């Protein structure tokens, strides 16, 4: 069965993609499987300069999930271009560059530079990282700044699809989805992590040095499915469904809620081979559900 999908012009040989922040720059996973088996992946969030990230502890396990406050540690654009891209160009999979800035100017400078890099298939704007003071969610939880930053990036991105990764930490995510679409976004990634906290009761302090962190993993899946559902109702552009996907069944659930493709995040840490495994299991599940393609099930749960 052909399970390839077209995500705003990005050809994915299957609809299962590695989520930003859990997949390094792809190459980390080469020791586990052939990267050409997966639909694609989103890079660790890139900034103009490299970033050291947050103090430790940065992670904490939670029921069926985890909190993280990594703080967007990354190698920076130059090193990504010179050290990672030459290797990635040789691999037949979609490379989606996730990026962020602290100002609109930084976002647009990065967007323009990434748009010019041969071998990058798409851009994913991170306006939703909950773990940094400036940039990230400071943009993505305010409707006006969301509009401004998406419009600014849209005006400089000429060659590649521009996807916006939305924050779930808002009252009405569909409002943000609509603004992104109206500002020229080609697609949405729904959702980034939910802000959470765990307290060490013996130390009487939050476990994470940052205090709060982003909650991910199967614990957030129903929230994510609901938000994909809301965004699908609100916009026409394609959606990446993200949030605790751990099985082929979960992939189909997001697709039926309205996702064109999905991203797997936290479960990569637990089962580093999960993405090719889900891609392999998907056709059989689709067959059992009486479907001949992924596309025909997109938004199926909305239809009478």
């Amino acid at each position, binding site marked *: 069965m052909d399970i390839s999908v077209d995500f705003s012009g990005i050809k994915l040989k299957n609809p299962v993609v590695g989520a930003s922040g*859990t*997949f*390094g720059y792809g190459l*980390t*996973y080469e*020791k*586990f499987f052939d990267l050409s088996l997966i639909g694609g992946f989103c890079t*660790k969030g890139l900034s103009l300069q490299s970033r*050291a*990230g947050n*103090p*430790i*502890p*940065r*992670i*904490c*396990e939670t*029921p*069926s*999930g*985890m909190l*993280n406050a*990594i703080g967007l*540690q990354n190698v920076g654009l130059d090193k990504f271009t010179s050290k990672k891209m030459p290797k990635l160009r040789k691999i037949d999979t979609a490379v989606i560059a996730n990026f962020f800035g602290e100002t609109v100017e930084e976002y647009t400078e990065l967007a323009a530079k990434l748009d010019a890099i041969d071998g990058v298939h798409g851009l994913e704007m991170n306006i939703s990282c909950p773990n940094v003071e400036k940039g990230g969610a400071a943009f993505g939880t305010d409707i006006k700044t969301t509009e401004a930053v998406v419009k600014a990036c849209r005006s400089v991105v000429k060659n590649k699809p521009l996807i916006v990764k939305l924050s779930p930490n808002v009252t009405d995510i569909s409002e943000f989805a609509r603004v992104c679409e109206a500002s020229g976004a080609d697609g949405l990634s729904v959702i980034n992590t939910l802000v959470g906290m765990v307290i060490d009761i013996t130390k009487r302090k939050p476990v994470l040095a940052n205090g709060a962190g982003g909650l991910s*993993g*199967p614990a957030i899946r129903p929230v994510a499915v609901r938000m994909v559902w809301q965004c699908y109702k609100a916009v026409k552009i394609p959606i990446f469904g993200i949030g605790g996907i*751990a099985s082929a069944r979960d992939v189909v659930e997001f697709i039926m809620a309205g996702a064109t493709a999905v991203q797997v995040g*936290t479960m*990569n*840490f*637990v089962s*580093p*081979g999960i993405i090719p495994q889900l891609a392999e299991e998907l056709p059989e599940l689709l067959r059992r559900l009486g479907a001949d393609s992924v596309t025909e099930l997109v938004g199926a749960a909305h239809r009478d």
Partner: protein
Amino acid sequence: MTMQCAVISNRPLTEGFFHLSLAPEEPMGAITPGQFVMIRCCDFTDPLLRRPMSVADFEPDGSRFGLIVQTAGRGTGMLSHLVEGDRLDVIGPFGQGYNVPQEAKSVMIVAGGTGVAPFMTLAPTLAAGGKNVHVLLGARTKGHLLMEERFLHAGAQVHVATEDGSKGFDGLVTELMGKQLDHMDEPPDLALACGPAGMMRAVATLAEHSNIPCQVSLENSMACGFGACLGCVAHVRGEERYVTVCRKGPVFDSREVEI
């Protein structure tokens, strides 16, 4: 890298500690003491993350290896119930182990709790290689001391400290280390530590005061074990920079990182 392992045995050690012996479907290959594996405690998603564990005893080709586990929470509690013939999902081995230079003639090992694990094979190897090996073992009480016999049989000089004074030196293993260093004619050429962070910090300080190179094994919280999550990083001393414990460590020269 990804292995289904058969449980060969699950042997209780002392209260709250047990030894798991595992046989991977395919031998996992050469292992350096101090390297670790990531253990999945259950097939479902709670507890979700794998548990990092130092490889303890092992066959040279990795056809069998052991883990020393302390029951600390639900994940390790599940592992404590494993019996012969059960399967366990393991990935690894990962990281950089201890590096004992040829020219080091005498080595001081300091271990607390499950920190004895990486030395179960290393101490006998060093002793068999003609090195003078001191093993300092620390525990809260006599009943919690691990692997004393094994180190004695290996030909190491074993020194014990218990916090309640029930056996050996009455106090912390790091206090014992201070006394040992004072009494030795020649300081050891190298110190190796594995145990709680506070213990390793104290070992590193003592070693640095005596100009003894010291290697420590960090056990920062870790989600993946192979460099993807960037959760386990350690702060590089004197720099605004972090290194991944899972890839650059878990064993570091104590002067490189903040413990």
